[in-house]
């Protein structure tokens, strides 16, 4: 099977999946419950999410393992089950994806801050190594190191995945709009610095996800494109911003309004498109329709 990078550099647009976390909540995940535990205790529900994205037209789907590092699982007393829960996450998505679609093993931040002395570089490296090995073992094609804000943590994760697995490595950061209209992560990282550091660490694909809606991401994508002219770019905006109605949260962008931003995101440099929090299979369907006939 071709690798994701090869497919993208060949000019084909790829569609990723949408949200998992907000989708799991709709399926009954309760506050305080460990989402990754669902990979073994509610396997069918997780498989249904993966399948719904495949049916919606995703060429690549991620896995229910965003909080699957030993550090995150420790909150639930599950740090000794890293391999089991991540392997199961990848196996579920592989089952839904079949042999002709890609599986990207999700790896999120650990919540630890290196410069505060919360944790050592070696401890972080070992945690990311353990998680990426398990995702590879479960059948993932790539590691999706996502929603990062700190350069040190992200580059350690990229190296851990690159040096210990044969998988492709995708890395996305999440940005906020600052006063004055510039974009930085909460740790103060600008898109160009992220691109430079992620490529130096060995990332195959870079990108931006979460926090912002699709209309706010084109400037970030343009900055990434300028800093990394030949690297495929993944963009996964939230479905706009959360709006609380009658105690329930909904998101401001419908599939239709979201899809209107697709041409601009592509023109900015993104050839790999999906969505993040608040989105669902209908958003993916609309994004796929909006990219039809276009080349990356």
């Amino acid at each position, binding site marked *: 099977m071709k690798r994701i990078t090869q497919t993208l550099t060949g000019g084909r647009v790829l569609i990723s999946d949408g949200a998992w976390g*907000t989708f799991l*909540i709709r399926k009954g995940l*309760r*506050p*305080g419950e460990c989402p990754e535990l669902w990979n073994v205790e509610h396997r069918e529900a997780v498989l249904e999410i993966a399948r719904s994205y495949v049916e919606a037209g995703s060429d690549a789907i991620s896995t229910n393992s965003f909080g699957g590092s030993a550090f*995150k699982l420790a*909150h639930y007393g599950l740090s000794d089950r890293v391999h089991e829960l991540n392997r199961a996450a990848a196996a579920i998505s592989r089952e839904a994806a079949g042999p002709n679609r890609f599986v990207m093993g999700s790896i999120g931040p650990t*919540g630890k*801050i290196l*410069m*505060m002395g919360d944790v050592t570089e070696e401890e972080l490296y070992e945690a990311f190594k353990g998680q990426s090995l398990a995702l590879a073992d479960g059948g993932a094609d790539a590691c999706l190191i996502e929603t990062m*804000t700190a350069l040190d943590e992200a580059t350690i994760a990229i190296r851990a995945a690159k040096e210990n697995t044969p998988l492709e490595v995708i890395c996305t950061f999440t940005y906020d709009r*600052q*006063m*004055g209209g*510039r974009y*930085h*992560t*909460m*740790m*103060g990282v600008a898109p160009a610095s992220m691109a430079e550091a992620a490529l130096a660490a060995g990332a195959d694909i870079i990108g931006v996800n979460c*926090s912002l809606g699709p209309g706010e991401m084109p400037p970030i994508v343009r900055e990434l494109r300028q800093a990394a002219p030949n690297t495929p770019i993944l963009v996964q905006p939230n479905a706009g911003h*959360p709006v*609380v109605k009658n*105690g329930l*949260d909904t998101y401001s962008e419908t599939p239709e309004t979201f899809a209107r931003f697709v041409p601009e995101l592509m023109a900015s440099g993104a050839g790999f498109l999906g969505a993040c929090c608040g989105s669902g299979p209908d958003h993916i369907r609309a994004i796929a329709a909006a990219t039809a006939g276009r080349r990356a």
Partner: protein
Amino acid sequence: MQDLLEQITVCIERGKVNGKSPYPPDMRGQDGADELVSKALGAGVPATDILERALIIGMGNVGQKFSENKVFVPDLLMSAKAMTAAMKHLKPFFESGQAKHKGTFILGTVQGDLHDIGKNLVGMVMEGGGWKVVDLGVDVSAEKFLEALKQNPGSVVGLSALLTTTMVNMEKTVKLLKQHDAKATVLVGGAPLTNEFAKKIGADAYSPDPQGALNYLTDRHSRN
């Protein structure tokens, strides 16, 4: 003495912890907050002057720059580290009553939410503003907040949430606390929150950044 206080202010604002700290690079080899506070005390500068005229001002400066997006989380974290190094020397003065906190601030992330970075930043800025902080951690139930308020009567309570799915738990906590003491002050914060939401659930104030919470309490304090 004024010179020493100014130097301490700079160390706090720039996050210069001690002489050994390599950060910030342009202050390498110089004394940090640790050494300078010790020196000031040795020279007879009253602890309250060090607190009011150096530490609080330095933290206030960095907190203000943070809310203006001129500095970022790592800068605030290093300033807080310098603040901790300085406060270590002032601890005996707080214990003997020579130095006093502005009040007690009970802080926690609400039930179901495990995010602690935002909450920790608020704690650091409040401490930097001269408040005693009681940090209840993450995933804190309404009952636990109430218990802490009973143990520390008259405290201000700060609730944090990062998830849209957990911010709804704030309402329950605010209600329980106000039921116990209608005059209790409850502040809320976190990425998905808005002023509107804070009003709706009966919180006293919302701030998009830590400094805003401190400024709110300082303003209120000076009005009383």
